[in-house]
């Protein structure tokens, strides 16, 4: 079964450092998402991306965050200056169709970010 792949699986970074989390969505999917999950808590929406632009973002996704699709396969989340509270599991996800059409969202295994 096709899957969303994420790298790294775990990253430890110093507070204030920049982090880039990478994702390869499923190849024929057009809609891409980032979610995060703080340990033991619920999954939180960060951003959705379609047609090379952000289609929606949450209040969590402030100016410290950015997303990019630098080529035809990768989808990245950048955190410009990490804070302790950014420590979480970051999930990339993709779907073939958009939410209006009824989309099955496939999640990657996640990138665990620890800010120290």
């Amino acid at each position, binding site marked *: 079964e096709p899957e969303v792949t994420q790298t790294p699986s775990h990253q430890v970074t110093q507070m204030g450092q920049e982090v880039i989390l990478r994702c390869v969505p499923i190849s024929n999917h057009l809609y891409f998402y980032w979610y995060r999950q703080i340990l033991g808590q619920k999954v939180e929406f960060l951003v959705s991306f*379609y047609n090379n632009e952000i289609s929606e973002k949450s209040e969590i996704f402030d100016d410290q965050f950015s997303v990019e699709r630098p080529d035809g396969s990768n989808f990245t989340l950048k955190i410009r200056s990490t804070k302790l509270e950014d420590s979480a599991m970051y999930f990339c996800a993709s779907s073939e169709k958009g939410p209006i059409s*009824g989309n099955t969202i496939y999640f*990657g295994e996640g990138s665990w970010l620890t800010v120290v």
Partner: protein
Amino acid sequence: GQQVMQIPQYQHVQEGEDFTTYCNSSTTLSNIQWYKQRPGGHPVFLIQLVKSGEVKKQKRLTFQFGEAKKNSSLHITATQTTDVGTYFCAGRGGGTYKYIFGTGTRLKVLA
């Protein structure tokens, strides 16, 4: 903003017993999805419900969407140890891409 709550937060059942988790949204939803997350794992899509009052079954799992499209439930008949995990509902309001995940129900099945 939209909030999605689930009850119970935790449930321990003996293998073979039934289990139900309830999901309630503060606003009317366009559709709702259910996910299962194993410990240490990632959310795995189970099903999507779109129509008011819709009921869908997947083997021992029964999903229901309320008539008012503000609540939903997942019922597992005769639980097995493989059912262990956290079950999340995720609701989407109209005119938005984002799914708001519920608080989750963590299921433990005792053999």
